[in-house]
């Protein structure tokens, strides 16, 4: 048994040194999570805020200016006043504005007659945003006309629109609340896919495993030594994720912090072992990283419930999604963040993740059976 600990210590020292000396590993392990947090946290959001809108007012009458005052007042829209349509179109083409609001030169006259028209042009390349902006514009302009109709009395309004549409995603920062916990899942998955998937394959390619095999070393020792240093890197990433969730994105943490850390570490172990197993099977660094990306990161993004709600997905997709460890972790981590400690969910997730650790550990052990054939 003392041999076990001597060998394990030697292997741990070796793996840690190799990890610390490989700059690309550290970069992927420590910087990529930060980049992802910023990218997803700020970049990927389903909210529309301060959407730039070009406003063209061809009618010098003050009533025309009043008609679009609602746009200036909206927190979701940012008006850009331009001299004529040509300028507005140029801005639209340059993607500087998402929409154009055009008040024609006869606006005041026709308004007095009761059939004033406002032209609204929206960039439709991003349909989702277009629909949201249209809603905001409608309500902003309708709001103004409602004010007007109060003054002029019924019958002389631009439109009898009284409905202010509620946008699905527009209240507060709901989508970052939803995304940031999911990001923890993605980052843990990524570490396994990018870091451990190279470890065994690299030793096959460089021929070092052959020399290592013909020593008293046991496969279990190799596996433990390859997992532990990356568990530490992953633990740092967990801390970074939790801190940024709490202090940058102000996501509430309603459940137990200890349980969040525990389930994250369990999932991290699953992810690292999965990478290691792929590495042992492919024996080739390029293939291993490709397979790991396709088999773990992509499905974790698409099928774990990170972005798409899978309850409406076809049965086959649902079955596949439930085979992914990421799905189980995603469910429990969102619950722990946003709902609170639900013990049944935590126990179930821990059991499932532990089972994965056991199965993947055994599979990896098989790939290190000290055989070249």
């Amino acid at each position: 048994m003392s041999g076990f600990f001597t060998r394990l210590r030697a292997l741990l020292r070796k793996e840690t040194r190799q990890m610390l000396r490989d700059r690309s590993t550290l970069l992927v392990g420590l910087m990529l999570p930060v980049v992802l947090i910023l990218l997803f946290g700020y970049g990927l959001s389903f909210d529309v805020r301060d959407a730039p809108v070009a406003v063209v007012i061809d009618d010098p009458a003050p009533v025309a200016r009043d008609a679009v005052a609602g746009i200036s007042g909206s927190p979701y829209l940012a008006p850009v006043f331009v001299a004529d349509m040509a300028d507005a179109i140029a801005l639209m083409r340059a993607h500087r504005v998402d929409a154009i609001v055009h008040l024609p030169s006869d606006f005041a006259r026709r308004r007095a007659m009761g059939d004033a028209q406002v032209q609204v042009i929206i960039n439709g390349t991003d349909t989702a945003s277009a629909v949201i902006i249209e809603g905001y514009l409608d309500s902003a302009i309708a709001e103004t006309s409602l004010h007007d109709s109060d003054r002029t009395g019924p019958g002389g309004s631009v439109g009898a629109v009284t409905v202010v549409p509620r946008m699905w995603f527009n209240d507060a920062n709901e989508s970052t609340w939803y995304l940031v916990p999911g990001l923890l899942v993605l980052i843990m998955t990524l570490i396994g896919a990018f870091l451990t998937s190279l470890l065994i394959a690299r030793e096959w390619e460089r021929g070092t495993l052959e020399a290592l095999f013909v020593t008293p070393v046991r496969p279990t020792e190799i596996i433990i030594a390859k997992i532990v240093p990356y568990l530490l890197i992953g633990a740092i990433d967990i801390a970074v994720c939790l801190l940024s969730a709490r202090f940058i994105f102000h996501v509430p943490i309603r459940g137990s912090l200890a349980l969040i850390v525990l389930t994250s570490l369990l999932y991290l172990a699953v992810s690292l072992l999965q990478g290691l197993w792929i590495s042992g099977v492919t024996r080739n660094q390029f293939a291993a990283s490709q397979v790991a990306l396709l088999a773990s990161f992509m499905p974790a993004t698409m099928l774990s419930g990170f972005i798409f709600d899978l309850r409406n997905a076809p049965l086959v997709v649902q079955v596949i999604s439930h085979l992914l460890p990421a799905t189980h972790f995603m469910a429990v981590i969102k619950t722990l963040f946003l709902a609170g400690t639900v013990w049944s969910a935590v126990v179930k997730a821990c059991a499932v993740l532990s089972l994965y650790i056991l199965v993947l550990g055994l599979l990896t052990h098989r790939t290190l059976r000290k055989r070249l054939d």
Partner: protein
Amino acid sequence: MNEAPPVVAIEGLRKVFAAPDGTPFAAIDDISLTVRPGVLTALVGPDGAGKTTLIRMIAGLLQPDGGSLRVLGHDVHRDPQAVQNRISYMPQRFGLYDDLSVQENLDLYADLHGVPDDERRERIGRMLAMTDMARFVARPAGKLSGGMKQKLGLACTLVRSPDLLLLDEPSVGVDPLSRRELWAILEQLIERDRLSVLVSTAYMDEAARCDALYVLHHGRLLAQGTPDDLRALAQGLTYEATPPPGVPARAVQARLIDAPSRIVDAVPRGGSVSLIRRPECSEAAMAALVPDAAITPREAGLEDAFMLLLHAQPGADVAPAASPAPPLVRDAEPVIVVRDLVRRFGDFTAVANTSFDVRRGEIFGLLGPNGAGKTTTFRMLCGLLPATSGTLQVAGVNLRHARSKARARIGYVAQKFALYGNLTVRENLRFFAGAYGLRGAAADARIAAVIKRFGLDPAMTSGILPTGYKQRLAMAAGLLHQPDILFLDEPTSGIDPLARRAFWRTITELAAEGVTIIVTTHFMEEAEYCDRIAIQDAGRVLALGTPQAVREAAGGDHTMDMNRAFIAIVEQSRANGESAAA
């Protein structure tokens, strides 16, 4: 000592792999052998003989498909770990971690073998002293030269005294100087620790140092015995033919090797030709082949015995029928002019101040250890890499200005044989013909010509061909556009001695037709085929001239082989460098 139980006992061992085309083939075919304790035993054979497979099976890394295999009293198949606890093994790629330092590599293996602290200090200290690496303990293994890596690999396997040491081609790809050092260390250890060693090698001079030899070829055991036993096989069949003045040795060699019914083997050596006659061929019949040369008997060497054994195998004669050599075409005008060529990578000078000329129809060899600057020089000559400074003229064209114009006149055969593995021989040739701008009937005529010349089967898929065959195909592709100059980068590495003979036969024929040949090689004895050679080390040309002139510069006569000449020249230059620095 004979009463002691053998360290390795192998009986009727078999190992079957799937060939690239899916059919099974026996990598180890019914082999029986024993390794006695306390001696140096060698597995000798060309690449592909099954040496590595056999060593891996002894190490418990491959499962046998038949027969019995006992190592140190354990059945390897049943309990590989018991064997792996007691042996040390150095695989061909040394098993070093490039990103760990010399000391860290040594400590890792000492820990894995459970060497106690006090013993470890003593042993590692001794290994470092022996390998002269104490200065480099903090250097990452990846930054060591090939020869130093090899010594470190050996030191790592010897951090404790194993009951059996397995070395798989420990000296492949390293220069003669490092090879000699490695063997000195090995012999010292065997002497001192009474080590039992099994080593595989393709070098005959290494085999000659061993106590017991097993000759392997295509997975079968051809012969076994002491070096003297094997040498006796060729006794009385070996001669030396000295050509008359003015006739190059390789012209005589070509005539001899073209008569396989009488001559087993002929190679140029030291200005004359070493040959082996067939036992059934009389001395008179042999002499009739080269009436102008003086033939004298010579002592049989291990290499002679080895060639004799290989030739006794069915299908051994692979030399394609050579056409009668046309008269030598040679003009004084150099086709390649290199003046003060320099290539730097950052602050590292890969090639320093190199100058030489090559004339039309000449065979020019670039020799040197790995990292000497051969490949860099070569790439600059082919126009693949711009020079940092200096003049470089190929086929009358200055490579600085008209690279593509020069390229149309050169053929290039890369070390890894740039072929498309999933295309057939004909498809590969058709592609390269197109790449060289040959079309229609002209392309067809050239493809047919090279297929005939190199004895190729156009329908074969090139990916599954044996290495020697691939090399012929790569040569064929390089010659499609009838280049004036042919560049060959390590063309003979990884192919067996018979295929190497055939290769050089084709090369001498091409040179006689007026094609200029530039070739790099790490087989020093192949320098004998060259008209002139340049020996490079650490980016500098140390010697330049005919093989004979280089031998004389090394302070030897014609009996000195190129290995020893090489070592002498490199040592001289390094000694000069040190005295200059002092």
